[in-house]
């Protein structure tokens, strides 16, 4: 009887959907599975994998019919591949949503990702390579009541692995964002070359307060913990012809938490970008200052999960593995830095430009700690106090990261392209959890060339060379050399051989991290298989980082979409 009732209800529901034209939509999706088999290797520190076989997989299925859309994502971690948090172990549907647009309103229920401005006070996003997913579960409204004005409202809780979030005490996130494009709002400004957009956000997290006791000057105190932590940000984007300027300033209310050592100091962040771009030449400058801006929906959380905001890195993100060996990680408790990029295209037909022209990119970045002074009568960053005072414009004495890099990209002949890179990096080991060690100073060289044999076949060779005097053992092993050869054939296959050789290691074996890979791409289906050794290290994406343990074995990726 129950089954019949469900069937009748389903039919009625389908008829109802059809009546609204919803069944005439389209379905799309994508799928990926990563599989890993790794064996114990004491030389490189690869640990034994008891399961022998590990896999991470996901599939998105989306339905779209006009103004209505809905979908879900299935995920499985059986068991999680090396370097991913074990709390991901399991399978299920952590992400499901439905959305419709009507009049000036767009309503999303269930899970969603969203970002206000640069994300300084709110960014919900997924970065699969970092094992990071802070998807919201709740409600999102986007209203565009008039042209040029966009209002967003969000409420919900953030994903925490497979936890039943509505059964936990994790914080409830509420937020509002308003953005006004003056050029769209005021009809007479629409065709102007000067463009101005301003916006503002406010986000608040409610989390039940726990009792926190702190010792201060030989007495014990119970801290009064704010249960509602608010953060606000204001931003503008301005452009006039080739010139552009954007800025965002954010301020966060008192938020004593484990990351800032339970201090009451309010947080603030400033991000300013300016750029000038004409044909063949572009320059951009960025500056950033962060002060006590860890903003999570659980004050006792320390990892990458439950971040309410996002603090972008202003250092260059590298694709070459030795260039990225010492990556920069954003210091959420305090940092200030600058970045400058200059891009110039040397014209064709000149001595340096040759027949096809030459692209030159110069990048400089430097990030320091912020100035901090202890509050009189207390230790620096003493729990239960304001923590410290800081001069906004004064950098701290500690250098976190500095890099200058030069890239020259040149098409030598019709079939040969070359890329040359040099980078000088100073890296503070605090990012690897080793503040006691002195800075790593590294020079890295890359030469990368691709030769096109014909329309469907090409070969690529790459040499990377890292030189440094620092040799601290596990995570800094002096000099490295990497050679890669790749053959792309028949328009859809590739085979590659590479060897990353730690020839300068003075504390252990001079290991060859060899790797063989093979793969194919057919329409939207891609299969890649690699076998070899992977060194341990850290990968960072946008200043957010994850440790990658050493492995030795097989790795297979299959992905497709429809």
């Amino acid at each position, binding site marked *: 009887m129950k089954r019949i009732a469900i069937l009748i209800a389903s039919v009625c529901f389908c008829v109802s959907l059809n009546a609204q034209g919803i069944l005439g939509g389209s379905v799309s999706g994508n799928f990926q599975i990563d599989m890993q088999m790794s064996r114990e290797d004491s030389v490189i520190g690869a640990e034994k994998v008891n399961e022998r076989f590990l896999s991470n997989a996901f599939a998105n299925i989306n339905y779209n019919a006009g103004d209505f859309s809905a979908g879900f994502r299935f995920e499985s971690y059986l068991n999680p591949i090396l370097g991913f948090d074990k709390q991901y172990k399991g399978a299920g549907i952590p992400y499901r949503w439905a959305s419709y647009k009507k009049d000036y309103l767009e309503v999303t229920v269930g899970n969603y990702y969203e970002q206000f401005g640069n994300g300084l006070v709110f960014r919900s996003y997924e970065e699969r390579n970092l094992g990071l997913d802070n998807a919201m579960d709740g409600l999102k409204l986007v209203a565009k009541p008039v042209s040029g004005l966009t209002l967003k409202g969000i409420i919900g809780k953030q994903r925490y692995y497979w936890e039943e979030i509505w059964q936990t005490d994790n914080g409830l996130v509420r937020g509002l964002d308003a953005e006004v494009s003056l050029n769209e709002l005021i009809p007479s400004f629409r065709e102007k070359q000067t463009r101005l957009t301003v916006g503002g956000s406010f986000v608040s997290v409610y989390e039940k307060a726990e009792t926190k006791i702190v010792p201060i000057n030989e007495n014990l105190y119970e801290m*009064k913990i704010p249960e509602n932590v608010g953060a606000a940000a204001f931003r503008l984007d301005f452009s006039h012809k080739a010139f552009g300027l954007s800025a965002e300033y954010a301020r966060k209310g008192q938020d004593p938490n484990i990351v800032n050592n339970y201090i009451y100091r309010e947080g603030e962040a400033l991000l300013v970008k300016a750029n000038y771009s004409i044909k063949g030449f572009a320059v951009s400058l960025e500056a950033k200052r962060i002060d006590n801006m860890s903003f999570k929906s659980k004050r006792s959380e320390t990892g990458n999960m439950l971040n309410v905001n996002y603090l972008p890195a202003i250092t260059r993100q590298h694709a070459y593995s030795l260039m990225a060996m010492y990556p920069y990680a954003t210091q959420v408790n305090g940092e200030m830095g600058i970045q400058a990029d200059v891009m110039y295209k040397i014209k064709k037909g000149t001595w340096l430009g040759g027949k096809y022209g030459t692209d030159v990119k110069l990048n400089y970045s430097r990030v320091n700690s912020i100035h901090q002074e202890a509050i009189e009568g207390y230790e620096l960053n003493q729990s239960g106090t304001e923590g410290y005072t800081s001069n906004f414009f004064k950098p701290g004495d500690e250098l976190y990261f500095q890099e200058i890099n030069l890239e020259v990209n040149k098409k030598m002949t019709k079939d040969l392209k070359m890329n040359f890179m040099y980078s000088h990096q100073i890296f503070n080991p605090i990012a690897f959890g080793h503040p006691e060690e002195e800075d790593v100073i590294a020079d890295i060289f890359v030469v990368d060339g691709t030769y096109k044999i014909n329309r469907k076949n090409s070969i690529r060779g790459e040499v990377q060379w890292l030189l440094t005097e620092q040799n601290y053992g596990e995570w800094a092993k002096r000099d490295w050399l990497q050679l890669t050869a790749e053959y792309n054939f028949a328009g859809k296959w590739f085979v590659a051989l590479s060897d990353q050789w730690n020839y300068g290691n003075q504390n252990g074996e001079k290991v060859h991290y060899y790797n063989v890979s093979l793969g194919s791409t057919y329409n939207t289906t891609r299969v890649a298989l690699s076998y070899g050794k992977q060194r341990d290290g850290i990968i960072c994406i946008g200043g957010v980082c994850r440790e990658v343990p050493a492995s030795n074995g097989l790795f297979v990726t299959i992905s497709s979409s429809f």
Partner: protein
Amino acid sequence: MKLRKILSALLFVPFVFASCENYDEDERLKLIEGGETTDSTPITKEQSELTLLLEEFTAWNCPNCPQGTAVLNTIKDTYGENVVITAIHQGSLAKPKGEMTLDLRTAYGEELGKEIKSWPTLWINRDVFPSGRGEWETALADYFATATHYLNISLGSKIDANGNVVVSTEIEALEDISSNLVITLYMTENDIEGKQNDNSNIIDYSFQHVLRDNPIVNYPLTMGALTQGTKLQKSYLLKPAAGVNKSNCHVVVMVADATSGKVLQANEIELK
């Protein structure tokens, strides 16, 4: 029309902006009276069995609360030393009014029970919260059947020359415990005479196990793993709240997981 759309979209702005709180410097910290002390007293009450903490949220003007107390008395008769009972007088129904001039509420109890909406309510080890008093005995039996006996808390107590209470503890780990642990100590008082609403009749009443003020709450006990067989010996100084009759008091001691707040073991000792 445009203006109406904008105004309707902005209607919920005040709710969001109200959702923020900051504390001035003089509001942030509350000095904890007492704490760890170098003074000590011999252990006189040793423990060797799993003992649960039963915290009953009650109030003098709650007509059903005497029935809850009756259930707890039955439980005490059944489980004896294996349960420690505390009566937390809390909420709007505990406010003195009319014939009842005695205020049995405490700052700690109010904070602890601030989300409680009905009385009596029972917490078992701050972990399980059975919904109605009819389910308390079953829930407790189920809890005993599945709970792990992680540690023992052996106790000694004395009243020092200043009238403060010194409690010496010996915590013995029976299992490996990876979580950080915290310890909470408070006083409870028996035989407090007052008025009670009993099924809508105001009667003379003798209150038992009443939580008193000035507790030591969530004091750090361990940072990092505690291995099986480890014994920790520490002493604490409690400053009795004004008006407390120490000769009718017990000190309740509990050890809890610092992250979840779940109580792992409890014990109490009579003040002498």
